[in-house]
């Protein structure tokens, strides 16, 4: 079970208040697909992901990015039981999507970078640590039902 300190909850909720699921979601997914190119293999149905410009203009990337960030935002409403909240999504990623769980950490890294860029000086080491903890919890929750 995860213990959240008050200042960690506060840091995460205040950062999230400034998040735009569509714009930041697209940017996060773009970075994942560009910096870690093997992740493109999970998105065969998206069409052209062959260059950075293709990724940037791909409407599926924008839609899916918004979906992922929406799901992460929903985790904030269940911070004391992220694991339980993500159980169904974990089964989906394991049994249907067959995603290597290492990739959840990579997405977390990309999202932290997008948050840092967006929040700027306000992304202090303490805020960074709280958001990093959230990413670790989400990656753990998504991996938990793998067998």
């Amino acid at each position, binding site marked *: 079970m995860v213990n959240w300190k008050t200042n960690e909850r506060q840091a995460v909720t205040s950062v999230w208040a400034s998040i735009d699921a569509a714009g930041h979601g697209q940017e996060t997914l773009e970075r994942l697909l*560009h*910096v870690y190119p093997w992740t493109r293999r999970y998105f065969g149905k998206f069409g052209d992901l062959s260059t950075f410009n293709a990724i940037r203009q791909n409407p599926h990337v924008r839609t899916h990015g918004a979906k992922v960030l929406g799901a992460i935002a929903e985790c904030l409403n269940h911070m004391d039981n992220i694991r339980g909240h993500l159980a169904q999504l974990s089964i989906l990623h394991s049994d249907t999507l067959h995603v290597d769980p290492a990739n959840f950490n990579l997405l977390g890294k990309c999202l932290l970078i997008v948050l840092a*860029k*967006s929040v700027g000086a306000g992304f202090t*080491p*303490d805020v*960074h640590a709280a958001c*990093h903890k959230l990413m670790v919890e989400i990656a753990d929750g998504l991996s938990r039902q793998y067998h």
Partner: protein
Amino acid sequence: MVLWKPTERQAVTSIWAKIDAEGHGQDTLERLLIVYPWTRRYFDTFGDMSSSEAIHQNPKVRAHGKKVLSAIGECINRMDDIKGYLAPLSILHSDTLHVDPENFHLLGNCLIIAIAASFGEAFTPDVEAAFHKLMAVISAGLSRQYH
């Protein structure tokens, strides 16, 4: 041997031209010590690092951050033989400092986040990819002489 595309070299050198070894060095090391708290065990001689505030005010953290970023700057001046340049530092980290090489990767993450927070929109996915590659090469160079 690492092959650098001209766009990658440019991305790295143009960002580095605006890096402040002291300020960004302190920011990077603070993030490492706060987000990955076990790393504090490598810096016993630094005195009080028991809280974020203590770390932020610790003059040895500031001085050491500057040292680390200066060394990274030297790597950027020798991008075609980072491995060779880092050989003595690798031996030092292995035989004298006994640092688990996994931590080089963590410092790389912290530097990337410090740059993202500082440079904002200028930290494009292409720049991110170039820095990710640079930090991977530096981590590899620092790990190479371990035995």
